[in-house]
């Protein structure tokens, strides 16, 4: 619609003006934080639900894996163990630990085919873990620090309870299934920040299930102590050792694979307060020669790696 050229410039402007456009047509009037919080909450809860479903699915599938398969899976472990040259002291400590395991196996009513094999590792880590096929590993570092037999029984009963509840294979299954799903979802998010966000959110959800496993094992372990010693005195000594070891470095429970050591201790103390007999009962000491058995015969440095296999479940 060309205007005739004689029209003045004022007229042109009259015809063609840019009206003031009201704000908020092309943009949202909603506060950005409101939308953001809704999005975060929505995404986080979807991830948590996804992980929950995968964990349930994985536990369901794992339930159909017979324990004998686990034993076969873990066979390579045990065969390498045999090749280590056992010294007299190691044999003594192994025998002692294996005997104690036998008592706990009875106390926990383990199924017939669920055999426990104890391995003693001459390394300074203050740790013990249970893994596939009923294999439980004890490090010298932990055994050296335990003040009495009750505390040792607590660790062992805790680890054997993990085996009883089949936590190592469950943990492996969850790691594979939920871990795989998480990495697929996060890598297709298309954004490096998002990738991190999704995988961290997923991991924190899985940790919640880990802590549940630990609580269940603690509970079962205390039950075994009651049936072996008639009380749970001394069980908290184990956690005092751990607390001393992880001083200042324990993360908030939300970020941790385990319940807070402090909570585990107070849990034990609450329970022992409820059973009135605890005051009169006595703690069983470790064998006299225990410390001598533990004397390291080689000064092998700790491998130092904190990386654990998903199927290895610590105290």
């Amino acid at each position, binding site marked *: *619609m*060309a*205007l*005739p*050229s004689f*029209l*003045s*410039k004022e007229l*042109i*402007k009259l*015809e*063609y*003006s*840019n009206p*003031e456009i009201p*704000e908020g047509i*092309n*943009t*949202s009037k*909603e506060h*950005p*934080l409101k*939308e*953001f919080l809704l*999005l*975060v909450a*929505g*995404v986080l809860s979807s991830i948590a639900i996804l992980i929950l479903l995968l964990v349930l699915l994985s536990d369901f599938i794992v339930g159909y894996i017979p324990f004998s398969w686990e034993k076969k899976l873990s066979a390579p472990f045990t065969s390498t163990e045999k090749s280590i040259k056992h010294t007299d002291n190691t044999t003594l400590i192994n025998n002692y630990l294996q005997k104690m395991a036998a008592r706990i196996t009875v106390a926990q009513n383990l199924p017939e085919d669920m055999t426990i094999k104890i391995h003693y590792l001459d390394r300074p880590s203050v740790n013990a873990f249970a893994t596939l096929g009923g294999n439980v590993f004890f490090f010298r570092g932990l055994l050296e620090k335990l003040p009495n037999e009750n505390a040792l029984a607590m660790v062992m009963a805790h680890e054997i309870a993990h085996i009883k509840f089949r936590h190592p294979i469950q943990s492996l299954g969850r790691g594979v299934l939920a871990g795989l799903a998480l990495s697929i979802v996060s890598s297709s*998010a*298309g*954004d*490096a*920040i*998002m*990738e*991190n*966000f999704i995988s*961290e959110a997923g991991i924190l959800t899985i940790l919640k299930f880990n802590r549940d496993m630990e609580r269940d094992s603690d509970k079962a372990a205390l039950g075994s102590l009651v049936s072996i010693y008639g009380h749970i005195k001394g069980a908290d000594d184990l956690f005092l050792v751990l607390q001393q070891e992880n001083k200042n470095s324990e*993360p908030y429970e939300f*970020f941790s694979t385990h319940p807070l050591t402090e909570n585990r201790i107070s849990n034990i103390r609450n329970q022992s307060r409820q059973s009135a007999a605890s005051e009169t009962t006595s703690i069983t000491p470790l064998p006299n020669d225990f410390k001598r058995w533990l004397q390291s015969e080689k000064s092998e440095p700790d491998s130092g790696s904190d990386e654990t296999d998903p199927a290895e479940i610590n105290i």
Partner: protein
Amino acid sequence: MYLELIIFLTLLAFGYGFGRYAEKKHYRSIIAREKELNNIPAIATKHAPVSGQQHDSNLVMGSVVISIDYFKRFAASLRTLIGGRVTSYETLLDRARREAILRMKEDALSQGGDIIFNIKFETSSIFKGKKNTVGSVEVLAYGTALILKQGAH
């Protein structure tokens, strides 16, 4: 893990704080300058509104590059999972388009232009961050300004 979380939250807070401040300030400036430059209409017709006896026509353009902030990017990537309006980018592009028009008008004003017709936009993301994330956006507005010939009245 703590450190990561703290860094993440700090970046998010900084992104939100600075981004929001910059956006508000920019909108204030855009609205004020739009009023000021309202006497130069910018229209999209293809043909000149007057036949060119009394006017020269000149190319005028304005371009602007605006970076998104950490908060906007994160909010937008949450959107990519769910779908829906990416409101954090809407304000960004709205600002960029309006700023580009304003700069184009300022260009026209400096040449003595009265009206701009046949205006067009080009939009491009000028750098791709890690994994093709949008870093910043460029909007170019260009058109033909009519400038009254000297002595023609």
